[in-house]
C-alpha cells in the first residue's frame, strides 16, 4: 500500500475515532474523509442486543471496512472489539454454501429444488400421519423480524401448530415474565437515554463490561463526568465490570432473592420509600396473586432483615444496608440485569424483586430511573417478543389463548381462524423432550444451535438424532448440523435486508449490501418457498419483497402497546431506528412509557390520570405490582457430594456457541479453549494449580478442562464459559426451568472438581 494512502487511512481512522467523542481532530478534512472508492451503508451490529449502529464500507463487491455509526444514538460511533471482525465472519471458511441432504450418514450436495421438495414432502407426510403438532419450529433472537414472521405464519397459521419457539426462551423469558407481572406489559419503560441521567446503577447478574461493552462505556463515561454517580453490583463473580464499582455484593449463586428483599426492607425502614408514588401507582400482592396491604408486605419483609439475608445469601448485612441506602438516597437509579437473573428457576421472581425496588422508591418513569433488562441477542425483542415467535404468542404482543387476537391475526394472514390453535404449544424444553419421546417427528431449526445451547444438552441429542431435523444455517459444521437430515444455506448479515429490534424498543433497518455467498438464500424466502411447496401458495406468494412482509407485520401492530405502524421502511432507511410506540408516520417515537409523552398515556381520560404521573395501562387499574415472592433456593443447591456452585457465561471475544466468533482465527486464537475458573483458596485446598487439567462433574455429566486459578469467582463457586463444542459446558448444566417463564437455570448447578 503506498505510504500516501496509508497516511490517509491513518488520518481517517483517527478522525473517525475523534468524531465518535465529538471532537473534530483535523479541521477542514471532514469532507474528504472516506471519500475514495469506499461506499458506506448504515446497518446494525450482528452480535448482542445493544443495537449498535455500524457503517459497512464496501469497495467493489467486497466489504473492506467497518466503522461505528456516529449518528446512531446508541453507540455514537463506537463499536466493541467484536466489530473488528464482523467482515471476517461474512467471509468465514465455515460458511454453508449449498443445500445438503444426509444420505447413508453423509451429507450430499443437492439443488434447492430437491432439498425443499424433500422437506415439504416429509413435513406433509408427518402432518398427515401424526397431525400438525408432530411438527415444530425452533428459531432465534438473531433472525430478522421478517424471517420470524414468515415462520410464525407458516407454522401457527398454515400448518396449524403452536409448537413454535425460539432461543430467547433460554435468555429473555424471565425478563418478559417479570415485566408482565410487575408492570403489566413486556419490555422496558425507559431507554438508554436514562443512562446519562442516572445517579446510581444497579447491575445485577450482568457482566456489562464484557457482554455489553458499549453500554458499559456509556455508564463509565457518565460516571467519569459525574464522579458522584455510584455503581452497585450484585453478582457471585468478580468481572471487568468491577473496575468502576463502588460496592459489590457477592451472593452465593441462586440465593440473591433474599438480598433484594433485604434491600427493600432497609429502604422502607429507613424512610427511602416514596409513599405518594406507592399510594397512587402500586398494588401489593402475595405470591399466590392475592391483594395484600403495604403493611402486610412490610410484615413479609421481616423475614428478610439484612441479618437474615446474610444467613441465606452469604452477603454481609452491613453491605446490604449500605447498598440499600445507596439506592434509596440516589435521586435516580437505573437497574440493569441479564442472564444471571433470567436463567434461573426463580427468574421471574428475581425480576419482580428488582422492579419492587423501583416501585417502592418511585424510581421509574422519570429521566435516569428505570428497571432496564439487557438483551443478549440482536433481535430477541423485535422478532421474537414483539413478533410473537414463542409458543404462546402471536405478532404484536398477542396471545394464542385470546380469541380476538387469533381472529385479528388470522384475518391479516388470510387463513381460517380455526387454523390457529387456542392452546399454547410446547415451550423449548418440552419441545425437545417431545422430540426425544417421538411425539414431535419433524423440526425446522433456523439460525440457532440447540445441540450445544440447550441445558443438559446431551439429554436432547436422542430426539435430534431420531427425528427429522431441518437446519437453516449460515455456518457448517455446528453441533446441531451433526444431527440434521437437511441443511439449508442461509444468507448472513449484510447479505439480506430486514429489521432488528434491540433492548430499548428501537427497531432499525439493515440493508443488503452483498450478494449471499454461494447458493445461500434469505431465510424468509426459504420459508416462503417451502410453504408454497407444502401447499400454501395462496398464503405466501403475495410476498415479493422484504418490505411486503414488514408492512403486513406493522399493520398487525397498529393500536397495540408496541405500535410500529409509523415505522415504515422509508422512515427506517433514513433514521437511526424508531423507539415504539410509533403510532403514525409523523410520530417521533417514545422515550418513556406509561407517562407523559407516551401516546397511550396521553390519550387516557383525565380522570384516570388524575393524581398520577404514571399509568400502567397493561394492568386493570393502571397500578404496577410489588410482589411478595418467597426467596426460593436454586433447583440444585450444593451439598456434600457436589459442594461447588457451577455457573456459566461468556467472554468478551466469543459469542454464544461460537459459530461466528470461532470462525474468526484471531478471536479463536485469543481465547482458544474453555477453562474453569476456581478461586485460589479452593484450588489450594484441592491441590489444583493454574492450568492443571481438572474434571468438573455434575449429576448429569463430566468435563475434562483446564483450570484457571483466579479470584474472579468467590470461594465455593466455579465458572465455565460455554462457547465451545469440544468443552461443552452444557453437558453439566441442569434442565430445571422456571415454572412461569420456562427458562432454564443455566446459572446454578451443583458440581465437584478434581484433578484429572
Amino acid at each position: 500500500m503506498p505510504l500516501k494512502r496509508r497516511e490517509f487511512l491513518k488520518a481517517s481512522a483517527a478522525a473517525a475515532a475523534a468524531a465518535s467523542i465529538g471532537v473534530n481532530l483535523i479541521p477542514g478534512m471532514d469532507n474528504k474523509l472516506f471519500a475514495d472508492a469506499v461506499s458506506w451503508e448504515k446497518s446494525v451490529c450482528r452480535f448482542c442486543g445493544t443495537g449498535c449502529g455500524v457503517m459497512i464500507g464496501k469497495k467493489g463487491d467486497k466489504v473492506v471496512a467497518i466503522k461505528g455509526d456516529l449518528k446512531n444514538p446508541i453507540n455514537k460511533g463506537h463499536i466493541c472489539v467484536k466489530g473488528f471482525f464482523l467482515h471476517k465472519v461474512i467471509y468465514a471458511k465455515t460458511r454453508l454454501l449449498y443445500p445438503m441432504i444426509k444420505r447413508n450418514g453423509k451429507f450430499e450436495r443437492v439443488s434447492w429444488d430437491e432439498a425443499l421438495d424433500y422437506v415439504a414432502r416429509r413435513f406433509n407426510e408427518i402432518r398427515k400421519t401424526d397431525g400438525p403438532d408432530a411438527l415444530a419450529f425452533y428459531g432465534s433472537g438473531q433472525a430478522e423480524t421478517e424471517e420470524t414472521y414468515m415462520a410464525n405464519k407458516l407454522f401457527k397459521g398454515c400448518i396449524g401448530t403452536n409448537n413454535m419457539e425460539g432461543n430467547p426462551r433460554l435468555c429473555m423469558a424471565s425478563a418478559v415474565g417479570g415485566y408482565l407481572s410487575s408492570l403489566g406489559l413486556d419490555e422496558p419503560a425507559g431507554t438508554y437515554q436514562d443512562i446519562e441521567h442516572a445517579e446510581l446503577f444497579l447491575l445485577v447478574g450482568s457482566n456489562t463490561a464484557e457482554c455489553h461493552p458499549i453500554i458499559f462505556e456509556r455508564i463509565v463515561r457518565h460516571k467519569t463526568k459525574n464522579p458522584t454517580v455510584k455503581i452497585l453490583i450484585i453478582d457471585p463473580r468478580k468481572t471487568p465490570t468491577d473496575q468502576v464499582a463502588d460496592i459489590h455484593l457477592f451472593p452465593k449463586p441462586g440465593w440473591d432473592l433474599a438480598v433484594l428483599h433485604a434491600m427493600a426492607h432497609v429502604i422502607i425502614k429507613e424512610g427511602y420509600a416514596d409513599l405518594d408514588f406507592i399510594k397512587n401507582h402500586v398494588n401489593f400482592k402475595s405470591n399466590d396473586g392475592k391483594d395484600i396491604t403495604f403493611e402486610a408486605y412490610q410484615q413479609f419483609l421481616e423475614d428478610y432483615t439484612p441479618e437474615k439475608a446474610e444467613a441465606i445469601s452469604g452477603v454481609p448485612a452491613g453491605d446490604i444496608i449500605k447498598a440499600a441506602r445507596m439506592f434509596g438516597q440516589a435521586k435516580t437509579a437505573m437497574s440493569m440485569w441479564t442472564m444471571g437473573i433470567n436463567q434461573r428457576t426463580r427468574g421471574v421472581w428475581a425480576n419482580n424483586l428488582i422492579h419492587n425496588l423501583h416501585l417502592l422508591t418511585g424510581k421509574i418513569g422519570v429521566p435516569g430511573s428505570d428497571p432496564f433488562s439487557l438483551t443478549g441477542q440482536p433481535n430477541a425483542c423485535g422478532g421474537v417478543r414483539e413478533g410473537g415467535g414463542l409458543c404462546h404468542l402471536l405478532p404484536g404482543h398477542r396471545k394464542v389463548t385470546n380469541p380476538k387476537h387469533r381472529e385479528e391475526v388470522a384475518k391479516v394472514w388470510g387463513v381460517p381462524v380455526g387454523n390457529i390453535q387456542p392452546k399454547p404449544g410446547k415451550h423449548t424444553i418440552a419441545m425437545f423432550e417431545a422430540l426425544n419421546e417421538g411425539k414431535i417427528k419433524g423440526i425446522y431449526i433456523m439460525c440457532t444451535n440447540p445441540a450445544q445451547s440447550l441445558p443438559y444438552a446431551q439429554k436432547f441429542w436422542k430426539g435430534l438424532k431420531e427425528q427429522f431435523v431441518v437446519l437453516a444455517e449460515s455456518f457448517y459444521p455446528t453441533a446441531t448440523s451433526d444431527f440434521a437430515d437437511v441443511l439449508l444455506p442461509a444468507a448472513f448479515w449484510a447479505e439480506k435486508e430486514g429489521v432488528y429490534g434491540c433492548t430499548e424498543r428501537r427497531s432499525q433497518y439493515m440493508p443488503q449490501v452483498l450478494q449471499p455467498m454461494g447458493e445461500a438464500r434469505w431465510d424468509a424466502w426459504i420459508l416462503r418457498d417451502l410453504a408454497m411447496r407444502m401447499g400454501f401458495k395462496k398464503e405466501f406468494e403475495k410476498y415479493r419483497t422484504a418490505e411486503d412482509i414488514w408492512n403486513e407485520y406493522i399493520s398487525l401492530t397498529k393500536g397495540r402497546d408496541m405500535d410500529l405502524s409509523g415505522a415504515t421502511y422509508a422512515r427506517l432507511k433514513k433514521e437511526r431506528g424508531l423507539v415504539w410506540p410509533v403510532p403514525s408516520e409523523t410520530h417521533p417515537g417514545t422515550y418513556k412509557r406509561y407517562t407523559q409523552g407516551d401516546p397511550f398515556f396521553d390519550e387516557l381520560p383525565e380522570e384516570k390520570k388524575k393524581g398520577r404521573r404514571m399509568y400502567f395501562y397493561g394492568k386493570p387499574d393502571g397500578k404496577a405490582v410489588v410482589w411478595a415472592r418467597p426467596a426460593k433456593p436454586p433447583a440444585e443447591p450444593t451439598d456434600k457430594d457436589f459442594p461447588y456452585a457451577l455457573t456459566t457465561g461468556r467472554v468478551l471475544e466469543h459469542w454464544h456457541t461460537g459459530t461466528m466468533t470461532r470462525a474468526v482465527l484471531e478471536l479463536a486464537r485469543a481465547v482458544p479453549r474453555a477453562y474453569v475458573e476456581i478461586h485460589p483458596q479452593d484450588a489450594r485446598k484441592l491441590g489444583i494449580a493454574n492450568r492443571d487439567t481438572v474434571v468438573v462433574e455434575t449429576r448429569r455429566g463430566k468435563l475434562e478442562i483446564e483450570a484457571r486459578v483466579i479470584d474472579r469467582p468467590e470461594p465455593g463457586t466455579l465458572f465455565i464459559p460455554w462457547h465451545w463444542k469440544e468443552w461443552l459446558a452444557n453437558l453439566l448444566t441442569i434442565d430445571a426451568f422456571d415454572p412461569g417463564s420456562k427458562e432454564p437455570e443455566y446459572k446454578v448447578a451443583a458440581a465437584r472438581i478434581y484433578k484429572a
Partner: protein
Amino acid sequence: MPIAGVVVVTLPEKTSEVLQALKRLSQVTTYGVHKDNNIIAVLESESTSGLERLSNRISRSIEGVIGVFPAYINFEDEVPDQEPYPPVE
C-alpha cells in the same frame, strides 16, 4: 495492513500514565487526550490478529485503561476474493 481508529477510555487519574504507555508502543500512534480521559489512537498491524492482540494488550496490561473502543477499522488488504462457486452436478 489493517488499521483501527480507537478511543482509549481511561480512569481520569491515570490518563497521562496511559498516554505515556501508549506512546511507547511502536504500533500505536496517539492523537492526544480529549474530553478529560479519552485518548485518540490509531493501531496498526500486519494482520487483524495482530490488531486484536494489540487491543487486548492495551486493555489488559496497561493499568488505568477502562476500555478500547474502535470507531473505524479498515482491512481491505485482508478481504479474500470469493472462490468461484462450482455448479450443482
